[in-house]
């Protein structure tokens, strides 16, 4: 090629078109060598500038440089495009089905009763109640006598008690309710007391859909100055709403427990029909949840608290019952089977 011959615009356009026609980085490198390498026409033109007359050198040099940078730009534009294509082709080749997970994935699950207990604990923690625990193997004093059940009291017979062959006859038993923990809390602490006491209890009865011989209760105790029955009713409203949800209200009706006076049963709006009446609530719109009342002065006295200075209330209800209501468990006996297919559902 005659290096002095300048390239026409068409020639240049042809070269640029050829650069853009490169389909791979390798093809592009070939063209780069051909059009701008040391054997290329552009390089030859540059080299030839020295042999031109001085008055022409400047212009010729400027033209060649412009040409070279035009080609360089074309190469770099094309290189970027090809590099991008190559990268996406490579990534496309790595395409993966994210759901090809071989083998079973098994997570652990907390027991639905333990979860319920935890949720209830959290509700009460939020209300400023501490959580107290006590022994399941109790003595008669804490389970009955300090709670105003003297020996031979007829109310004792409605608490079907497992006695334990330990110590004197009938001195020890499996606690029939969590209420003995109330006594333990009052024995160990001065008021104000705001505590709940969850735990396992025992009744000597044959299990059925609603009752287990081994079951969990949560008990609440508030002892402070100026605590009234109105506080009790308000407290029950607050936690039933917090646990069961907005629109669930509670109501109290007279009942008897030796350790509270006045005593009440509390019911909550049926969570299935929200009060309209259904089979679960026997068409009353209400579901019985637990017992409560103002702490009997005898109980306060037994624990060394002056009933004229302090008053208080207590309440208790079944944790399994809450779980049954909330999760639609019609038969409580399934809770102790430990069928993994059941436990996994919660």
């Amino acid at each position, binding site marked *: 090629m005659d290096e002095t011959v300048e390239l026409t615009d068409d020639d240049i356009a042809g070269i640029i078109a050829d650069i853009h026609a490169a389909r791979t980085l390798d093809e592009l490198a070939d063209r780069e060598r051909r059009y701008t390498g040391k054997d290329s026409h552009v390089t030859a033109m540059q080299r030839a500038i020295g042999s031109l007359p001085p008055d022409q050198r400047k212009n010729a040099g400027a033209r060649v440089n412009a040409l070279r940078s035009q080609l360089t730009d074309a190469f770099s534009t094309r290189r970027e495009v090809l590099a991008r294509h190559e990268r996406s082709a490579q990534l496309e080749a790595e395409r993966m089905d994210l759901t090809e997970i071989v083998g079973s994935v*098994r997570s*652990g*699950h*907390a*027991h639905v*009763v*333990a979860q319920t207990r*935890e949720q209830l604990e959290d509700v*009460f923690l939020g209300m*400023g*109640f*501490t*959580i107290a625990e006590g*022994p*399941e*193997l109790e*003595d008669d*004093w*804490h389970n009955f006598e300090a709670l105003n059940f003297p*020996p*031979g*009291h007829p109310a004792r017979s*409605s608490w079907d008690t497992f006695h*334990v*062959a330990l*110590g*004197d006859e009938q*001195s020890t038993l499996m606690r029939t309710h969590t209420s003995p923990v109330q006594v333990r809390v009052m024995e160990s602490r001065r008021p104000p007391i*705001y505590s709940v006491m969850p735990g*396992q209890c*025992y009744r*000597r*009865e044959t299990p059925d859909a609603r009752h287990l*011989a*081994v079951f969990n209760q949560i008990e609440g105790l*508030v002892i402070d100055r100026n605590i*009234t*029955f*109105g*506080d009790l*009713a308000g*407290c029950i409203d607050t936690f039933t709403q917090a646990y069961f949800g907005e629109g669930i209200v509670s*109501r109290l*009706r*007279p*009942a*008897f427990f030796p350790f509270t*006076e*006045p*005593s009440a049963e509390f019911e909550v709006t049926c969570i299935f029909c929200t009060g309209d009446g259904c089979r679960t609530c026997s068409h009353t719109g209400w579901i019985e949840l637990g017992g409560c009342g*103002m702490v*009997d*002065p005898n109980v306060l006295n037994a624990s060394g608290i002056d009933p004229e200075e302090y008053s208080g209330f207590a309440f208790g209800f079944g944790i399994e019952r809450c779980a049954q209501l909330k999760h639609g468990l019609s038969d409580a006996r399934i*809770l*102790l*089977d*430990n*069928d*993994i*297919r059941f436990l996994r559902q919660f």
Partner: protein
Amino acid sequence: MRVPVSWLRDFTPIDLPTNELVDVCNSLGLVVEGVEQIGGGFDGVVVGHVLDVRPHPNADRVRLSTVDIGTGEPQQIACGAANLAVGQHVPVATLGTTLPGGMTIERRKLRGEWSNGMICSEDELGMAPDRAEGIMVLPEETEIGKPFAEVMGIEQDVVLDLEIETNRPDAMCIAGIARDIAATLGLPFHIPDPMVEENGPRVGDLASLRIERPDLCPRFTLRVLQDVRVGPSPDFIARRLTLAGMRPINNVVDASNYVMLELGLPSHPYDRSRVARSQLGVRGARAGETIVTLDDQTRPVPQGACAIIDGNDAIIGLAGVMGGASSDITESTSEVLIEIAQFDPYSINYTSRVLALRTDASARFERRIDRDGHLRAQNRLVELLRLSSPDLRCAEGTLDEQADEPWPSSREQLTVRTTRVNEILGTTFSPEAICDYLEPMGFVTSIHTEGEIAVTVPSFRPDCEREIDVIEEIARMHGYERIARRVPTSPFAARLTPHQQLRRRVRHRLVGQGFTEAWTTSLLGPDDVEKVGITDPVIELANPVTREESLLRNTMLPGMLRAVSYNTARQQLDLSFFEVGRVFFPPETERVVGDGGTAPRAYPYTEVGAIDLHGDHAGTRPSDEFEHLAMCQTGGDVDAQSIVRSWRELTEGLRLVRRLDLVPVSRPGFHPSRCAEVRDGAVALGVIGEVDPAVCAAFHINQRVAYLEVDLRVLLAHVDVVPQMSPITKYPSAEFDLAFLVPNAVRADEVEATLRDALKTNLEEVTLFDVYRDERSSSEVRSLAYRLKVSSLAGTLSDAEMAEIRTRAIEAVTTAHGASLRG
């Protein structure tokens, strides 16, 4: 208690729809457990006269009849009964009737023929399901078109089934319930005080009393009746008893029961001719005495129980519980002793509990009966009995022996402070308002200074012994639902105790590690103990229901194995369970530690408090109840090392202050060569390993089960609750591997401990990454390959320093364990 509403109306004019009456009862604490409509369900059922019976043209079993139902327009009715015949008078359910079974009668076409009603059987009418053979046929003279209920003399009534709480002795009778309802509704209430014509000899000439134990029987009253004609009761008495759930027996017994239901005072009639010397007495039973009770059962009389005796000192009744067969009323009885007494409630409770014999009478005596109601009840009884035995003669006077000390010792007069009422209830009642609540219930009140109210408690409210008991009555009458609610404000920023927080952390970590929480019962049977081979002492229940649940667990292993077995039997083979729960040991037992040696348990579960074994408050002892964590894995390649891996993962996450050792032991129930004790020095926390395959087999599990059980409280005492930072180097770490040939007797974690000890702060991590046993030779050693990651706070480790560290590691392991570096 079953309460016919018609009976309540004897005392107060209740006129409320049933549903409203139910609400009133509930709000009074007389909880309605059931409502029974009596004589209902017959609306629309009338008497029909069968005029014609003919075959159905398109059906074999059904015939068509024409029945006159008194409307003047005979109806065609299809009927399948074989006994249907022309001329019969039959009950017909007319169109629109809903039968007691819930079926509603509609006009319908049966194989092309209309049927305008239904001829009923007794069964379909809800009467006598036993003799339901065909349609019911009424007497021929029965008036056509007359309502069936009227023909049968069925009175409509409602029976409420009320649950009466143990503190409501007054509500154990119809009159008492009526009083409560009347008080809350503001209705008049009247309880008659019948007068009795005394037309017989003086009572003292016919009978005598001998009360040896006035402490057990503070009052004993006796009426004597002669020329009594024993026979059936009048219809209304029999009907009411039946509605109330009692069986009519004869007019004497029925009158006694009727009075008990109506007024709450149990009475007992004796055949005077069968009571030795016509004398009744009360004494405590001596050892070994027996009685044949009314139900013809021979029962031992518990020693010390309150007993009724005759003039020969023989026991003829279990006072307050059940009478004896020797003096009961028979058809030939003509002279009757009527006892209405009062007995010590605790004594009655004792007799009834020991004999497991609860009766209508004992339930009332246990709750304490009306102190002053005896004479009224006697008179009512005589009045009722005269309805069916008008010629009876009632002896003049009543034997009435009362203890010097009036009993029960409730204060008859209480002071109720208005301020106290309002403090307890959160109300603003005036003294007058309080009196207005109390008076209709039978309390007598008078207001003194400063709002103090003198309250005289009626004799039928022995439960009201204190001011607080009266406050409950005020609240009940006001209505619990009308007391304004307020939410109490705790002054505490409540949080879980450190132990509770850690327990949650453990549970949540295990769930995160893929373990599912089980809940197994704390009650075991001897079979469980035997299958697992438990050797530690086990506490027994004194009164178990079943043998399978007669012991308190001292390990969760049997419960876990049952849970595993339940699942594997259902083809659920891959299982990871954990449980946190209590276990129980007899006091002062020592748990086995190590190989046969014992040590006292170092960490009694003191937080749960002490228990009193003797009921004398003389001394308590820490409870021997412990909180354990059990973990259990089975399925696939699970073996003892799997559970150790999970245990390591758990303890690593909990950040223990020290590493716990796993010291090989053999333990009953565990695989003899795959079991270790979890230890911190001399203190044993628990056991880890594989369950003995024979034990698994005993639970019908035929795969390996790996198991861990530790004392959770001791474990959590090892948790570094607030870890303090240790410096980390700015310089890069380096890694190198070492493989040792280690004697089989040396545990891998011992080698690891030696490496940690030798390299101290230079060591960041040590990982066992390969174990190689030459299977062909019975080699005494195996190769353990460790990867060590090291660094220095001072700078990047040089080649020379790395070499020094390596040498230190090799020397330590070879010297300590007789190991050699593998070539």
